């Protein structure tokens, strides 16, 4: 399983490093992109941010890797036992494990760094020197590499150091039932659940006690809240692994029994008998398998999030700003001529830290009922996608905009406020551009983004497009990118699935010797793998979703310090999860596991038991 752990950490590190490739270099040139990043004070801050972000996933990855390394091949545990029996000290075993982890990390993560670096160079090649653009991205990826390399080394060390077993115990470490728990599940639930509840209570209490009328909240209070947030996150994570995983393992037995009954009902009594036999036992191996699968699913589940805030009407394409204000109408008339544009609404705009547009609700009602309803239901509030990213009623007040609150929306990137309630002096004219009925918004947005008005009146203009307008959209590069992402995401799942399926070969050979046909064995393997995957993936994805939706609610609670208005926290929790993606992930992961069980089985098709035993002794993925 050493190679499997190496593959998993390599794929995950690659996935994160790919996120730090300047994919959006072209379309970001008009904005403050990372094209000017330099290795200065901001660079150190950048590293800190990357460490914080990737550390979260590295912690989960470490747990996964410990689980994977614990799923030993048939020969590995006996090798460990022999080394221990020959006098290898624990310290020396740990040192060797750390070296193994470091070498594996250097190879796998180094390859990821080279691959993502290749994409970086390729992406910036036309317009910049390789290290001249998005220079910080190289440091960001290096930081990711260091964090994930550390995860693999730590996982190897934990695997070697824990648990303290005698050489003889090591021989049957896989088959042994999980030992008695030092702390009962109830005790763990009380400790971690209590901790999460207490920390959440602190957040709720402090935010409820705070009155926006009293002004901005102090740094100390913010630090306390952030500490409480981290505590909630860690406590929930611990709850998932220390309580959730054992509960899932205990659910494996009834699930397999149920699958066996189903098999018997479907006239597959032999496969059912194998499942029934499997159901009668639980082992350390099944615990570690579920731990590893659940951990990966939890990472995936925590990525399946969407903005819980409402979006503006789908026909809204984006906003063009024009300076001076007098040039607005000239621009508007030209944008109205673009094929597919249905409406262009001109409105005064205040630029600055927050770009705020004063909309006329009567005028906007016909083209954007969503925005109208939002601003009508909360008079004087500003709708913006920047809630949680710096927008606050106090900062708006400094700019002369006295908003009653902030309404989060998911549509990028400017703020909207009822023009009759705010009287700050505008600096630009904003043109809100809407697609015509029946037109494809993405196509029209592309035309709008590429359009260059002919003017002598305007001194400057900017655009905030709500729709993605990548130049390579729809080209083969897009497919390469999606293929790579799919490979990186599915790679660890498939590798783990193959590893899990390959571990059965010795048992399968014995079962074949006792009269099980290849078809029976494959049927049982696919059913068993499917049940294990469904339980572990289902739990992991759900835990990831719960984790991230809880954090979304808590983050929203903290945002009240800045005047963010939330009508329903329950809606925030439910809407922050991308349930559709979660369902797809579940289906794809379970299908991948079942397919891997089938494919691994294909290798033994026609093989006789003694041949399978010989193959099992040789080992794979060790």
């Amino acid at each position, binding site marked *: 399983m050493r190679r499997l752990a190496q593959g998993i950490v390599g794929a995950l590190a690659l996935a994160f490093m790919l996120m730090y490739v300047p994919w959006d270099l072209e379309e970001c040139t008009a904005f403050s992109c990372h094209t000017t990043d330099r290795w200065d004070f901001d660079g150190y801050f950048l590293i800190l941010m990357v460490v914080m972000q990737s550390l979260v996933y590295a912690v989960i990855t470490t747990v996964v890797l410990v689980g994977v390394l614990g799923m030993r091949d048939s020969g590995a545990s006996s090798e460990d036992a022999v080394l221990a029996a020959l006098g290898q000290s624990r310290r020396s075993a740990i040192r060797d494990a750390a070296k193994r982890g470091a070498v594996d990390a250097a190879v796998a993560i180094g390859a990821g760094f080279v691959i993502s670096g290749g994409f970086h160079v390729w992406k910036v090649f036309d317009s910049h020197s390789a290290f001249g653009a998005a220079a910080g991205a190289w440091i960001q990826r290096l930081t990711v590499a260091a964090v994930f390399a550390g995860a693999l080394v730590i996982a190897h060390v934990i695997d070697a150091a824990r648990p303290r077993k005698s050489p003889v115990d090591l021989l049957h470490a896989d088959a042994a039932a999980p030992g008695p728990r030092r702390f009962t599940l109830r005790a763990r639930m009380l400790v971690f659940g209590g901790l999460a509840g207490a920390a959440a209570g602190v957040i709720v209490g402090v935010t409820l006690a705070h009155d926006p009328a009293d002004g901005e909240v102090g740094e100390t209070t913010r630090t306390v809240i952030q500490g409480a947030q981290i505590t909630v996150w860690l406590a929930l994570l611990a709850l998932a692994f220390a309580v959730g995983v054992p509960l899932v393992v205990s659910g494996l037995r009834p699930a397999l029994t149920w699958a066996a009954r189903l098999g018997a009902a479907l006239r597959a009594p*032999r496969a059912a008998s194998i499942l029934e*036999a499997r159901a009668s*036992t639980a082992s350390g191996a099944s615990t570690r398998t579920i731990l590893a699968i659940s951990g990966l699913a939890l990472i995936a589940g925590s990525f399946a999030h969407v903005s819980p805030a409402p979006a503006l009407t789908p026909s809204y394409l984006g906003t063009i700003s024009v300076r001076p204000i007098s040039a607005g109408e000239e621009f508007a008339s030209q944008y109205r001529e673009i094929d597919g544009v249905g409406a262009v609404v001109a409105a005064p705009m205040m630029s600055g830290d927050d770009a705020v547009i004063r909309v006329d609700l009567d005028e906007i009602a016909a083209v954007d009922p969503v925005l109208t309803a939002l601003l009508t239901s909360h008079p004087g509030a500003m709708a913006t996608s920047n809630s949680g990213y710096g927008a606050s009623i106090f900062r708006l007040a400094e700019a002369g905009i006295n908003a009653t609150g902030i309404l989060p929306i998911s549509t990028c990137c400017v703020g909207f406020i009822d023009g009759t309630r705010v009287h700050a002096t505008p600096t630009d004219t904003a043109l809100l551009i809407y697609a015509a009925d029946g037109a494809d918004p993405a196509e029209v947005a592309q035309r709008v983004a590429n359009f260059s008005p002919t003017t002598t009146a305007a001194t400057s203009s900017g655009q905030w497009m709500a729709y993605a307008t990548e130049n390579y959209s729809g080209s083969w590069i897009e497919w390469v990118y999606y293929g790579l992402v799919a490979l990186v995401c599915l790679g660890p799942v498939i590798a783990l699935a193959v590893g899990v399926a390959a571990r059965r070969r010795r048992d399968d050979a*014995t079962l074949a*010797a*006792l009269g099980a046909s*290849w078809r029976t064995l494959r049927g049982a393997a696919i059913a068993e793998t499917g049940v294990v995957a469904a339980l572990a993936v289902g739990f992991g994805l759900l835990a990831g979703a719960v984790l991230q939706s809880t954090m979304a609610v808590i983050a929203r609670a903290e945002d009240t310090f800045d005047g963010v208005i939330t009508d329903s926290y329950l809606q925030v929790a439910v809407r922050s999860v991308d349930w559709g993606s979660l369902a797809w992930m579940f289906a794809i992961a379970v299908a991948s596991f079942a397919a891997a069980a089938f494919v691994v089985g294909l290798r033994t098709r026609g093989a006789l038991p003694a041949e399978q035993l010989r193959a099992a002794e040789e080992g794979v993925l060790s």
Partner: protein
Amino acid sequence: MNLALKSLGLTKTYGSGPSAVTAVNHVDLEIEAGVLTAVMGPSGSGKTTLVHLLAGLDRPDSGQVWVGDDEITALKDKDLAKVRGRIVGFVFQGFNLLQTMSARDNIVLPLRLNGIPLDEAWLSSLTDMLGIGRELERRPFELSGGQQQRVAIARALITKPRVVLADEPTGNLDTHASAEILSHLRQSCRELGQSVVMVTHDPTAASYAGKVLLFADGRVAGHVLDPTPDAVLAGLDALAGVER
């Protein structure tokens, strides 16, 4: 003569080129039904490969094997699985018990796999005879080597197969337990018409057999009928070219 097993030109080679080893070399063999037959020979002579081939657990490079009247080397997977499940019982040298299952589950597994109802009385008498009646709920790694071997023997016998092939079935047992099990196997052969082929290194164990096949360099080099320990030793010495 009623034959339980028969092979013709049976050959199995491992590896290729200069490092190739022919473990079984054109073996023609006839095993009489209802007889306990022992296979003896030096280490590395190909005994284990021979019993694997005879049980349909391994694929010969050439040659044929018959179990009764069925040529198993010509059978497809499904039919071969039936032979292994209902007609042949096998005791592996390394036991090959499923480590996550209890001893009882291991023993009754062939019944479950082959849709044969469990005969509790037979299970009870078998486990009592083998002395593992109290160990049934334990997992293999919680049992001694001898106990694991007995579980493996019980698993091979639970389906009352026509032919039992056993690779050193008493290698981990003490003299008393060995004698008891071998007596039982011999009795099964006589009374139930069961045929047993066992690989052994122990001349005393071999002396329980009706016939001892002497195996060397992948070939049947001779045999001893109605063997005694001394006769078996003499046969083995002759095989090794040693004069007593």
